């Protein structure tokens, strides 16, 4: 198992954000986490990357408690693409992508040819090559997000965590980048855990969906089983029609006014 999460609870001050959450995540799968704003999705991700420590409960990653990993070890295991990325210093886009390799490069060493090749490939594949020599501070939100995504891919970790990573991208790049993540899952047995706003994109890419509400899991399971009118109604309080769409080769959700 990639993650075994047991009875996880986390408070921000007095506010309970994660409420006795338990779930098991298998390796080699694409997980989507869906839920209304403020339901604790981002906090849950922060707990998974050990950016925050749980108040109670355990997170076992690859058979060992997450708290027993050093930050350094985890940085070669788990990569994160954050939601809002803001930077004040004019690094070039290429430098940012190379930063994804830092966990693999000793502190005072220069990048090896291997590192340079990985970065080169990823920059070209993700379409970041159009902006690679420009300052990250001058890129549009979408362009910047692509660079940050490429940075996380360059980290080359077994687990990739996406916090609404494609929300600010146009649909072409959104699908493009999610395809990279999915390709890693199919070909290299990586695990992707993605918080997503767009239910239809989630249905298209995710093997499993986890519906969260008020810090707890409302429903989870294989996408085909768990994605239906009742689940969406209980989590978002919206009426929908859910059906299998042959063109997308997945279930899709439509809404009404």
């Amino acid at each position, binding site marked *: 198992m990639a993650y075994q999460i047991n009875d996880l609870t986390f408070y921000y001050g007095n506010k309970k954000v994660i409420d006795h959450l338990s779930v098991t995540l298998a390796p080699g799968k694409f997980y989507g986490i869906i839920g209304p704003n403020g339901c604790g999705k981002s906090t849950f991700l922060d707990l998974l990357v050990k950016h925050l420590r749980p108040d109670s409960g355990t997170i076992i990653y690859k058979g060992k408690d997450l708290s027993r990993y050093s930050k350094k070890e985890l*940085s*070669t295991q788990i990569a994160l693409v954050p939601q809002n990325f803001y930077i004040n210093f004019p690094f070039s886009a290429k430098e940012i992508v190379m930063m994804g390799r*830092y966990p693999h490069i000793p502190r005072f060493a220069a990048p090896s040819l291997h590192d340079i090749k990985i970065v080169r490939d990823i920059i070209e594949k993700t379409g970041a090559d159009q902006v690679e020599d420009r300052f990250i501070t001058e890129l549009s939100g979408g362009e910047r997000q692509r660079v940050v995504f490429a940075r996380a891919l360059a980290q080359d970790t077994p687990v990739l965590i996406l916090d609404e990573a494609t929300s600010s991208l146009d649909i072409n790049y959104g699908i493009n980048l999610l395809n990279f993540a999915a390709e890693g899952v199919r070909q290299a047995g990586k695990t992707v855990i993605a918080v997503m706003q767009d239910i239809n994109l989630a249905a298209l890419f995710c093997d499993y969906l986890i519906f969260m509400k008020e810090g707890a899991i409302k429903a989870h399971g294989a996408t085909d089983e768990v994605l239906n009118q009742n689940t969406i109604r209980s989590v978002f309080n919206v009426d929908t029609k859910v059906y299998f769409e042959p063109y997308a080769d997945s279930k899709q959700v439509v809404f009404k006014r």
Partner: protein
Amino acid sequence: MKFKEIRPGKLVGTQIVLLSAVLCAVIVLSTGLGYIQVPFIDVIKIIAGKISGQQRMLSSLDNLLPVIVIDVRLPRILTATIVGGGLAISGVVFQGILLNPLADPYTLGVSAGAAFGASLAILFNIDFLGTYSVPLFAFAGATVTLLFVIYLSSSGGGLSSNNLILSGIIVAAILSAGISFLKYVADEQVAVIIFWLMGSFGSRTWTDVSLTFICVSIGLTIFIFFARDLNLMALGDRTASSLGIDTKKVSLILLVTASMVAAICVSVSGIIGFVGLLIPHMMRSITGPDNRKLIPVSMLAGAILLLSADTVTRAILPSEIPIGVLTALIGGPFFCYIFRKRQTGRTGF
């Protein structure tokens, strides 16, 4: 070979060599300048003779010259050099941690703390440590202020950059009111306080040189060690953390070190503004924001700039004006210029 520039390679090496050469030249030049002009070749002879211990190299010279060079001018010149370098690297680190290109070594109230400590010592004529009483009080004031600012900002939600800047501003405001009060009650000592606050490298000794040299060297070593982590911290807390950086620990170590470097600089020289703000800014447009290049280059540039400014006020102007006033008078307008340029055009700042 499109990727060559990603390596912190040759180019920075050249910049460092070039700046070091300029720095040496400025040191020799400044040592020669002054009320009594010493020919540059004699300056080199005296320094070389002193280092190698060969007295006969000096035999052809006037007996007074080695005294002027070694005992009077060099301590002041080297202190100005080291303080310039120290303020500049401490500025780089502050800007890096606070994710704010407008931060400087005094952002956390270090200068206000030092000024308050120094004013206290001057006001109450504390002199049990001789000439070191005022610097010592200044250093203590800076340290206590820093600890208080960190305590204040760590209360809610960790050491976020906003919390730190806000706490620094609040504490500095309280302290400057305190300083005004001390000046008000100081009577005839008010001139001494004001003069100290404006900064000066006058009558520095070799003790000042070695003290600042040791502190700034330790600071530099720590900064270089964490330079790459500081790059990652520019990506924000969450991302840096996912890249293996213990953000809380690293920012605490760097904040304390940078403040200590600034505090030691302030306590030997008084408050010298704009070096720590301006130099990192200017150098960033040359080296880019990579701290592994920016830190050493800024240190050399800061040293050159502050020494030149001190030499101008010491040897070129008809009467000496306080160095802190001079740097602010030159640095302020220059900062306005680059700030304006950044707003209107595409630059690397």
